[in-house]
């Protein structure tokens, strides 16, 4: 009887732990379209603020600075993607945001390459690929306000 009770108690503990774990993992997905899952949202927002600040600090490139500007932006977006992906996105919206960042990297690489060969019409055309990603919308959907903001640069 005592053994049976112990087994039952152990089972209860296991079930309770399981429920807690499920709540911890799944809670984010239900709120991801609103405010983002706790740790991911706060971490992503901090990473975006840092990246936006760095992009703003690049300013507006003069003619001879366009290649460097594009290469620097590419590196910043690559770093942002790594940081945000490492936070472990959960739910459709957060995953879509991280995928949007990942999608932007090869486009930025192509833009840098086109600028290197002084093909600025191609740089402009390729930027349509970035517009299509609608990264700001994806950020909003994931509840990431800072990530939805456009970095402002002034000449």
């Amino acid at each position, binding site marked *: 009887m005592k053994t049976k009770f112990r087994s039952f108690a152990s089972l209860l503990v296991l079930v309770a732990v399981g429920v807690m774990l499920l709540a911890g993992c799944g809670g984010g997905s239900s709120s991801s379209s609103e405010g983002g899952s706790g740790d991911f949202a706060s971490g992503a927002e901090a990473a975006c603020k840092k990246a936006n600040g760095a992009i703003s600090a*690049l300013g*507006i490139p003069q003619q001879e600075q366009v290649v460097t500007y594009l290469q620097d932006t590419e590196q910043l977006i690559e770093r942002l993607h790594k940081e945000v992906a490492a936070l472990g996105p959960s739910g459709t919206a957060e995953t879509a945001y991280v995928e949007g960042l990942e999608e932007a990297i090869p486009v930025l690489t192509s833009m840098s*390459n086109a600028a290197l*060969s002084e*093909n600025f019409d*191609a740089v402009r055309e390729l930027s349509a690929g970035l517009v299509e990603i609608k990264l700001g919308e*994806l950020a909003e959907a994931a509840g990431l306000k800072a990530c939805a903001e456009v970095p402002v640069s002034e000449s």
Partner: protein
Amino acid sequence: MKRTALIVVLGGVLALLASVGVALATTGATTGYPQPKNIVPAQKQAPFENRYVLTAVGSGASIRSGEMKFEFEEGSSPQFLVGISQFYSYGPTGEIETGLFTFYPPKELPNDKGLGFTALKVGASAQYGQVTPDGELQLFNPEGDRVKGRLRLHGGGPWPVEFKVLGDAERYTASPPAAKQIQEAEPNNPGWGGEPSEYEGEYELTNGGNDPTAKAGTLGAVIGVAQGLGTQGALVSSGSMTVEGNPAIATVKLDTGGTERTFTLTKLAWQGDQRVAQVHNEGPDSPPVGRFEGTGGQGEVKGTLVSGHSVYKVNFKLKG
């Protein structure tokens, strides 16, 4: 697929180039150009199937000399012309630079005046976009062995051009002779109108478009920069201009998405409805980086503002 098409086109370009030039004397055929959607009757194109040497060009184009050839695309049906040119230009520090362009597709000019072609800049390799639209060449109907026309390149022009048809045996052993520089009637009246009251004041931008960066989040800034590059003219989402002072100076503020730019325009000049100015990025005392060319009058100024690699199409209207 797109890359393959470009490689094929570039192959055709190189074959044609080999046939144009004087130093490259092989007679080649053009291949690889797709059939144009717009059909021009072959009899209207035939008079232009020739080799040419540039004999005169508007001085603003900074072209010293050049050669050109038009021939029918091999195997095309209906037939269409493709052209190639080699222009020798004066670089910013006076050195001679070579520029290769192809001209395709042909289109009829209004009033049966001749043919027009998109000018495609030819790069060093068949990378994406290495053959890119860079302007337009209009050729008016030949008069004897002379063909006059107009040329737009790199966002500048149009400049008048004159070509001489070369005979089959006429070839140059080096670069072709220098073309006559046609001095264009440059506006030289100071300001942008007869009286300062006609043009001084606050202007608002009237051709603002949708902001491509609005939903781009962190990518907005780089999109804003990229949209300002190239020869097509950036989509400006908002802007303003203030014209004041004696001599008059214009301060232009343009927003291409998340990117705000301020330009200073000096040496404002006018002639008829022409309006021109010198463009500076960092105030009136900084080195000029480009030029504004447009039209104006009755409280409006519209035209193209070029700053380095960036081109902006702007329409401004004087407030109240």
